[in-house]
């Protein structure tokens, strides 16, 4: 079933199948201001929702006085938790089967929590209404430090949950603890690092929002919303609001053009629910558009893993075992978006690219007075944390045994011939050739020359570092035996219909947020059917028309929906073959397939095109054949895919200020067979930049009172073109043996691989001073503190 290694495209430029850098079909509308994002939607009679939010992190609501707000011209209503309580809509379930308030009835649990909704006739009136609502609070001392949250005298935050006696949410573990401990006891070398992958934010340039339109006459709800998973959202809405009459056939969720999602637009946030509730109550369309500060302070948070990692190795640096103890700060609710059976996501990929005997990982999740966190930000569920942990501590090991970090990696790589490889924590890696990626990266950056330059600079007292990261990703969730969200299996789907004139429409259960699905999916169909990709229209995001799917996140589109598209197209090709045999009056077995054309073996001039077959499907069918040219596939992947790569980064450090400059960064990725090289490179550029951010700039911090200190772009430091280096990319191709196109998915590798590469480079620059670790983000002041401590600050 699997495809061969692709060496360039097999289809013509006209067909533009896999391997062509087809220009994107979505671009003309985006480039001419004709995109159709959520805030571009308006409906007649539309009202506006704006939200009153808590300035405090924890406390009782003494009183909400809406009287002045209701006097504001244009303000129609102020909704509170008490109002929603009447409909039993003041709480909602999270994707992890925890609960979360929509609006509070008595207690606020984090700063910027939604406290009341103001409905008005305009954006401006709604904002004035928000400013006029007077809420009296009785502040309580918040629990901000997750370690303190587990102390016995810590106040229990989730008193609403029956049986919850402390702030622990769950404990998860993987691997053989005893066997791992035994190796640690006898190992020649043990290294240990404690590290924090801090809370960060997706910061897509478009915030979240929706336009809820309830038609009271028909009892029908249409919700236009920024969601990466429209079908799952529809089901959740039906489950949450079924009791007020919103059953699933009466709900239509439409996800329009999305201005960046990165995982932040997977969960259901209270604002959506308040807008829907307001529309249902008022019988009018209600629009809610978050502003940037609300977005940065209330939703779309990721990471926040405190990890204590150890490697056991022999004296030569051969890794024998890995042990990680983790504390996960989830904020006030476990509202992360992970598959149900994976509370710590796919963290067990932490053994990475290295062969070892045993591993054991454990995670304890805790509640704190912060907004719910843990969205899979450009990450296949905690893979970023796992990779950062492993790739950092491997460097510590290299330092300890006195080996070059690239060499130590090479000596520990899972060898090419060991695939499919069974990792100690239970994964079956599909394919890999880690050395090839390493070789290419070293070659591209001139590794040996850089090491020489570094040695010379050290002599002169200059600080330069070279960082290596050889990550292995796991993505494409996932096989239905293990993967579900709220019980719904994580398959995905495609529906392909070829019209009589040979043009097609293809619909998918996923939803692009900039990845270019309209182009790559068309290329997939073109590859399989031989129709020009230009003739394939791709649609996603409307639950009334698209087949059911779990959506786009965790790099799952190509591995799941892309594969579904292949399978659906192949069904059509099989049908077309029958039609071709009919038209050419030969047996099916006498036909040869060239993309776009069936010809008779030995008589190449006797042929029909796929377009001929499509026309015949409506006009001239073999007897007994069902008319039409349409196929659907729900693809349940047999396994996940395991893309990998090696990144090498060069940094220079200013000994005066502690500033780190990324001088060069080479990223060699292997994502299996490539559908559109241009788009793949674009994904990598973007992912690298979203790795640069947390490595050097971005962090959501809170003070002891629970104030969010990075609540605007003034302090949440998204890199600009000036801070971002000119990325250099390369590729090796190791196809996935089980994906029908041999593709693996690529959206997230770079976000995962870049932070440890940069951190390793900084540590490498300082390694001769005895530095083994730097916490990210590696801010100038942090570096300077180290320089001063080591006596090299000038």
């Amino acid at each position, binding site marked *: 079933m699997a495809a061969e290694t692709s060496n360039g495209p097999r289809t013509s430029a006209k067909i533009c199948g896999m391997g062509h850098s087809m220009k994107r079909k979505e671009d003309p509308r985006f480039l001419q201001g004709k995109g159709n994002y959520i805030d571009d939607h308006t409906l007649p009679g539309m009202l506006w929702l704006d939200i009153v939010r808590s*300035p405090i992190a924890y406390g009782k609501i003494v009183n909400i006085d809406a009287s002045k707000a209701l006097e504001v011209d244009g303000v129609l209503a102020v909704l509170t938790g008490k109002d929603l309580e009447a409909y039993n809509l003041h709480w909602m379930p999270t994707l992890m089967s925890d609960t979360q308030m929509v609006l509070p009835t008595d207690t606020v649990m984090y700063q910027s929590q939604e406290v009341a909704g103001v409905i008005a006739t305009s954006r401006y009136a709604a904002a004035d209404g928000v400013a006029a*609502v007077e*809420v009296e609070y009785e502040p309580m001392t918040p629990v901000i430090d997750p370690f303190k949250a587990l102390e016995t005298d810590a106040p229990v935050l989730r008193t609403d949950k029956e049986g919850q006696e402390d702030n622990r949410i769950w404990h998860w573990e993987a691997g053989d603890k005893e066997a791992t401990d035994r190796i640690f006891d006898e190992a020649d070398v043990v290294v240990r690092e404690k590290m924090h992958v801090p809370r960060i934010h997706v910061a897509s340039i478009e915030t979240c929002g929706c336009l809820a339109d309830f038609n009271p006459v028909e009892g029908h709800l249409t919700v236009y919303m920024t969601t990466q998973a429209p079908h799952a959202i529809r089901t959740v809405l039906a489950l949450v609001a079924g009791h007020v009459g919103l059953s699933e056939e009466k709900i239509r969720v439409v996800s329009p053009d999305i201005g960046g999602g990165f995982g932040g637009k997977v969960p259901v946030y209270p604002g959506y629910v308040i807008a829907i509730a307001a529309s249902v109550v008022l019988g009018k369309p209600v629009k809610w558009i978050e502003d940037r500060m609300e977005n940065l302070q209330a939703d779309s948070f990721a990471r926040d893993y405190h990890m204590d990692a150890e490697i056991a190795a022999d004296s030569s640096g051969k890794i024998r075992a890995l042990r990680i103890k983790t504390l996960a700060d989830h904020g006030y609710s476990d509202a992360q978006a992970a598959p149900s059976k994976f509370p710590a996501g796919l963290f067990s990929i932490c053994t990475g690219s290295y062969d070892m005997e045993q591993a054991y990982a454990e995670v304890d999740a805790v509640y704190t007075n912060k907004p719910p966190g843990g969205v899979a930000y450009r990450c296949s569920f905690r893979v970023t944390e796992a990779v950062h942990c492993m790739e950092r501590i491997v460097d510590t090991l290299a330092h300890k045994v006195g080996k070059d970090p690239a060499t130590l990696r090479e000596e520990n790589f899972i060898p090419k011939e060991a695939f499919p490889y069974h990792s100690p924590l239970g994964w079956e890696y599909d394919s890999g050739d880690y050395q090839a990626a390493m070789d290419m990266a070293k070659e591209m950056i001139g590794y040996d020359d850089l090491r020489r330059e570094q040695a010379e600079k050290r002599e002169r007292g200059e600080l330069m570092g070279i960082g290596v990261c050889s990550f292995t990703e796991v993505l494409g969730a996932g096989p239905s035996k293990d993967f579900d969200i709220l019980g719904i299996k994580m398959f995905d789907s495609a529906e392909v219909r070829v019209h009589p004139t040979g043009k097609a429409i293809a619909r998918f259960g996923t939803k692009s947020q900039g990845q270019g699905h309209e182009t790559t999916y068309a290329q997939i169909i073109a590859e399989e059917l031989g129709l020009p990709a230009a003739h394939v229209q791709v649609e996603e995001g409307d639950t009334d028309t698209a087949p059911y799917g779990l959506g786009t996140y965790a790099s799952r589109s190509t591995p799941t929906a892309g594969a579904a598209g292949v399978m659906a197209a192949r069904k059509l090709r099989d049908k077309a073959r029958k039609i071709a045999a009919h038209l050419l009056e030969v047996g099916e077995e006498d036909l040869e397939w060239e993309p776009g054309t069936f010809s008779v073996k030995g008589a190449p001039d006797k042929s029909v095109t796929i377009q001929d077959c499509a026309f015949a499907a409506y006009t001239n069918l073999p007897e007994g054949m069902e008319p039409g040219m349409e196929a659907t596939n729900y693809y349940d992947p047999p396994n996940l895919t395991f893309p990998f790569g090696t990144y090498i980064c060069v940094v220079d450090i200013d000994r005066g200020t502690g500033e780190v400059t990324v001088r060069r960064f080479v990223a060699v990725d292997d994502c299996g067979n490539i559908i559109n090289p241009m788009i793949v490179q674009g994904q990598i550029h973007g992912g690298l930049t979203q790795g640069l951010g947390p490595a050097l700039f971005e962090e959501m911090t809170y003070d002891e009172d*629970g*104030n969010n200190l990075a609540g605007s772009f003034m302090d949440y430091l998204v890199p600009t073109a000036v801070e971002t280096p000119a990325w250099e990319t390369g590729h090796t191709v190791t196809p996935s043996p089980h994906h029908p196109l041999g593709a693996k998915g690529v959206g997230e590798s770079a976000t995962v691989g870049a932070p440890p590469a940069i951190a390793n480079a900084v540590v490498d620059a300082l390694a001769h001073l005895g530095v083994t670790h730097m916490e990210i983000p590696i801010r100038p002041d942090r570096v300077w503190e180290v320089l001063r401590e080591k006596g090299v600050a000038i």
Partner: protein
Amino acid sequence: MRIEEKFTVDAPADEVWAFLIDPERVAAALPGAEITEKLDDNTYKGGMGVKVGPLNAVYTGTVAFDLDEDARSAIVHAKGQGKAGMGTADMKMTSRVVSLGPSESEVTVEAHMSVTGILAQMGRGMMQHVSKKMFKEFTEILGKELAAD
């Protein structure tokens, strides 16, 4: 946020102590502060306006005094809520007066402040500057007032 200050006043300790435990006089020495109502012997209602350039924050709330006359030590607990979603402010201040001579006293102040909301978030350390400035003005006025007595 913790603030610690120590300063000397050219006045006898008893006079300084009397000043520090008189809500009206304390309020008068804090620009922007006012006492609006006495709730009981130790508790008052009041307000505090903080004006910094174009920014104008107004807090209303309560002040409670807990006095140890013998040790000349006072714990003042002020808490207030800002207008229009400005957030809350809470300050527990312990001040002690020690006599350094017949007409010289030393005042030590240790305050713990919690400020929530946009001023704490967007302040760029502004609240630290503001509180430093408030203390400075307060001690100046205190010194002047008592010297004038």
